[in-house]
């Protein structure tokens, strides 16, 4: 079986491809470039095409599938009504699947489930990463804010932190937000330098 993975995110495509590596008798092709997309898909003659929902070439690919009905191995959009649940899950995960006509239905479902799991795993990784980046930035701001207070008001580090915390409690804000405001104010006012 031949599966084409069309995704402009090379990292996500790699995660999908890796997942499909365990599937027996499965050859995969990853396409991350928009250029010559259709020619590459056509040359590969896939049984299944997986594509991320955010891909700007989706309409172009679907048009190719419509036109390909005239070909020997026409590819259909994976939209058999009995598969509504699978399709809904794949749309939720952000992946669309297209399957060559006549491909065994019992073989599609596990593959699609696998793709959905991998897409979801990638989304989790991305949001974890974004969160970690956010936390790092917040911590850096708190450190800067403490230093500003230490320099401008001659406080010790624990005192500076206490000041930030009580200000946050008084204004029912997060410490990180108070720190950010203070850093910003300091940049504008040019104090503490």
């Amino acid at each position, binding site marked *: 079986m031949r599966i084409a993975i069309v995704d402009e995110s090379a990292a996500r495509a790699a995660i999908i491809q890796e997942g499909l590596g365990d599937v027996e008798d499965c050859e995969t092709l990853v396409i991350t470039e928009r250029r010559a997309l259709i020619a590459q898909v056509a040359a590969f003659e896939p049984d299944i095409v997986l594509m991320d929902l955010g891909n*700007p070439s989706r309409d*172009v690919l679907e048009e190719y599938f*419509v036109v390909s009905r005239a070909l020997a191995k026409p590819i259909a959009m994976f939209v058999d009504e009995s598969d509504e649940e699978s*399709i809904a899950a794949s*749309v939720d995960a952000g992946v669309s699947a297209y399957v060559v006509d006549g491909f065994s239905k019992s073989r599609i479902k596990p593959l699609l489930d696998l793709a959905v799991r991998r897409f979801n795993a990638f989304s989790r990784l991305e949001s974890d990463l974004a969160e970690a980046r956010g936390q790092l930035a917040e911590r850096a701001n708190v450190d800067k804010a403490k230093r500003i207070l230490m320099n401008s008001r001659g406080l010790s580090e624990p005192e500076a932190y206490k000041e930030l915390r009580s200000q946050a409690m008084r204004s029912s804000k997060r410490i990180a937000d108070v720190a950010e405001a203070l850093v910003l104010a300091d940049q504008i006012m040019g104090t503490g330098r």
Partner: protein
Amino acid sequence: MSDRLKIGFLPLVDAALPILAHEHGFAEAQGLELEFVRDLSWATVLDRLLYGHTDAAHMLAPLAIATTLGIGRPARALSVPFVLGLNGNAITVSCAIADAIQPQGGLGDPQEVGRKLKEALRSIGRKLRFGVVHRHSSHNYMLRYWLAACGIQPEVDVDIVTVAPPFAADALESGEIDGICVGEPWNSVAVERGVGRIVLTTAQIWRRGVEKVLAVRTPLLEERRGAFERLIIAMRQAGEHFVDPANWDVNAEILSRPHYVGADPALLLHAISDRLRLAQGGDLVHFPDFMFQFREAANFPWVSQAGWLYAQMVRWDAPHFDPDAAKDAMAVFRPDVYRAALAGRNSPLPGASSKVEGSISNPLGVGAQQGRLVMSPDNFFDGKTFDPERLEEYLASLN
């Protein structure tokens, strides 16, 4: 408690009305909280609508009809209670082709440009390739209508392929296509980059051609009828705001933001004000009614517009004419919902829900259920008219 509605859209100027309804507080005043989901393909806008990621979508009118009829996928009933605008598209061709078919520059005459294109096809000695944004799009139908009426057979004399709007300029530059029919700002982007010239607007092909619509899953429309009626009120107010020259700058700025259209505000301003730069370094050309978003009940979903689109679908695409399908296609447009939403408000409502498209040559006062309604010429460039009551006859006349 406000009602939340999620709206899917593609980055195009004609997604303006729901966006401006949100940004200027018209939706909020109606007790609505709007949220937007920006996508880059119509397939994804449609998927999100069908699988409940969004409650309504900025959608190609023919795609809403094809989805309801089950063309290319299992049928899912969509309803169109509001037309987001008429026209707003243009035909841009590579500079070399433009020199051949519109050598004097400026906007051409559709008959004349078509005649020159036909000649050019003979002398160039290869099939030209035109891009459209989707098989089920007014762009595709308008382009084909124009070509066919000029004696050029789509599929035989020219190829028509799908190109995503944001890549129109790239595709022209790389020679992947020779011309494209696309909405703004993507024609202007190609012009600014010097890779093409605008030779025609679709408003010259059909002066009042239906373009994007607001599409909703039919069961959801019934379920949340009140919220959608209030959305219609808010979008009408946004339309009035959109066409007022005093607001053009601020609206261009809003639409230019990266989470909306994400394009140069100067180009968006051109489209909003019906002014286009047709060639790189050229003057702005004013073409009144390039986009038509508000006046003359532009947002009213005329059943006959859906009928015209269905006729084009039969003419160019898979389905054979089927009177039941024609009825279903026309029932996608929901003037009843539009009327209910705006009854008793300061918005004209036509007396009829269907008209003979292309039959108005001079400004014509038409019967109204509410307000005063004068319709301007709505001609097709070839002088044909479309009577939805005589759909089969119309189809026969095209062959």
